[in-house]
């Protein structure tokens, strides 16, 4: 175990996978000499050369589109999109192309591309840089959506992503890049997709979260403990595939649930979690499942982002309400 930030964990994972498999390469903007705007690839071009760490022209659709082609040629590309807000430019290559190649070709072709995209607020980034738009990719059969919350999770999930055959959108929380440090297992470390993680045990209410919101939920759980409420924190880890059985079990154990995410409410992935809970565990539910999310407004300019982002107090208030219901 070594203590690392998430960005360090990601960098060392990429490096290990590149050492393991010479077909692994990284495409992105400013990932070479600069090492990426967040330094996820720092030093890697010096080590692996310009053919494996490739600075691309400024065109997201062609980063994803050519990664598809590279994967068809037998390479194993990791595409870095500088911010998830710029996945919009590549949407038509991700959703109807990358995600469907296997299906469209009846399994004749596979496209094992991993797209890494940082996102999330609270880091005073310009417009369009912080938007949590993971939900826009969860309605896309064929695309896995992975949301690491800690450095160790990032390593385990990224390793699985790179080694897997199915395409992955790997969403990295900007806020967690440097803020959250944690122990990271050395050597081989993979985490299977579709299995949630109980980040904190609790009896009275389950807080569902992913990515940076897991830390928010943990803070809320700590605050709730002070008032005698025992909150379980569940990190969903992967939104697609979704651990429906794990969700049912978690809710069955507490009977009450709150879903927390950074994205706006309407059609955020919280909606899917709530629906799944009530389909799977309706008769265990003692209170409505509440959602604590950003409001239905575009991500604002930084002078006001603190009001936009879900706050611990709102999670605490919702958990309290869930627990006191009926």
């Amino acid at each position, binding site marked *: 175990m070594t203590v690392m930030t998430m960005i360090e964990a990601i960098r060392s994972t990429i490096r290990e996978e590149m050492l393991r498999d010479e077909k692994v390469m990284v495409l992105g903007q400013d990932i070479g000499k600069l090492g990426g705007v967040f330094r996820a690839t720092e030093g890697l071009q010096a080590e692996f050369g310009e053919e494996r760490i490739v600075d691309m022209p400024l065109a997201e659709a062609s980063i994803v589109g050519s990664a598809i*082609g590279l*994967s068809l040629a037998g*390479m194993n*590309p990791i595409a870095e999109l500088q911010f998830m807000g710029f996945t919009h430019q590549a949407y038509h*290559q991700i959703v109807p192309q990358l995600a469907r190649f296997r299906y469209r070709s009846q*399994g*004749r*072709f596979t496209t094992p591309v991993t797209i890494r995209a940082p996102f999330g607020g609270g880091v005073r980034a310009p417009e369009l840089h912080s938007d949590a738009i993971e939900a826009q990719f969860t309605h896309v059969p064929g695309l896995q959506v992975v949301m690491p919350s800690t450095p160790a999770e990032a390593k385990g999930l990224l390793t699985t992503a790179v080694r897997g055959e199915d395409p992955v959108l790997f969403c990295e929380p900007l806020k967690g890049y440097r803020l959250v440090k944690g122990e990271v297992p050395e050597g081989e470390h993979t985490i299977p997709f*579709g299995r949630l993680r109980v980040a904190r045990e609790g009896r009275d209410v389950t807080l569902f979260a992913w990515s940076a919101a897991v830390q928010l939920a943990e803070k809320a759980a700590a605050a709730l403990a002070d008032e005698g409420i025992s909150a379980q924190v569940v990190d969903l880890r992967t939104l697609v595939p979704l651990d429906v059985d794990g969700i049912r079990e978690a809710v069955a154990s507490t009977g009450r649930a709150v879903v927390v995410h950074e994205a706006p409410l309407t059609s955020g992935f919280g909606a899917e979690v709530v629906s799944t809970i009530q389909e799977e565990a309706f008769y265990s539910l003692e209170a409505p499942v509440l959602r604590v999310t950003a409001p239905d407004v575009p991500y604002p300019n930084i002078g006001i982002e603190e009001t936009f982002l879900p706050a611990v107090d709102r999670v605490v208030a919702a958990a309290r309400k869930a627990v006191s219901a009926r």
Partner: protein
Amino acid sequence: MERRELLDASGALAPGIDPPLDAASTLGALELMLLSKLVDERAFSLQRQGRMGTYSAVRGQEASVVGSCLPLDPGTDWIVPQYRELPALLRHGLSIEGILSYWKGNSEAARIPEGVKVLPPQIGLAAQLPHAVGLAWGLKLQADPGVVMTFVGDGGSSEGDFHEALNLAGVRKAPVVFVLQNNGWAISTPRSKQSAAKSFAERGAGYGVPSVLVDGNDLFAVAQASAEAVARARAGEGPTLIETQTYRLGAHNTADDPSKYVDTDEKLSWEQLDPIPRVVSHLRAQGALTDEDLAGIEERNRNEVDRAIEALGAVRPPLPESLFDHVWSQPDVRLLRQREEILHTAAKGVQR
């Protein structure tokens, strides 16, 4: 930009020009062009009989498609198609019934056989172009001698993907040949409303990609330009853009009615430039094609198409359960449960 023309409308070679294809290859190309024409006709009637989905014919563009693919080696090279390149796909190893199965709606039967280096048809216009670039780049990285040929239309060339793909190909010197089939129309949108550029071939310079403009109804001009481009790519000299100026002599597809937008004179004048008769005239003039030869080709083609259509009719329709295959390498529980629920209802007979 000058347009390359070798064989005129009457089938005469430009003075002082050696044909880029020998008589045997030209005959082979002609046979493929005629086969394509026959498949088009039969596919249209199948569609009219309700035995086929939407189908887009190649008719009129046979020289453009066949000329382009001739220099490719199906054993090493790849084709990344749009949707109107049937004879190139046949030459590369797909079967008629395989191709038609796709348009009939049976992707299972249309599965590209292992070893055939062709990607599935592309419906999202121009989206195939960055794939072609990545594929070519990937071959190059692995020192694979393969070259990638990809097709796009005058319409598709307006999409942002065209720009991004050509620019990237230029930067990476990817071994890819872009064949832009300018057939004058994108459904009902004429070339004049598609772009104010004098020609699409002009665009190459903006990406550092050498480009050529050719008479796309001239088998020799297309084949020559394509051979040069493939050779350049193979030699590590990077991508080429070829604009083939051609004409779609039929409807956009089985759902289209061009009489709404094409004026008859335009169509008539292009009929004079039909790519097939000029190859026939040329070969005849060379003494390389007799009436019996032609009848022989036509009979072989008819037999082949009859066989294929029969095979197509015998193809098992896709099973309902195949709906759930190939989404993932391993289906997750959620999908397995959906599969169960839906097949269970289907088994009871579905009312709509």
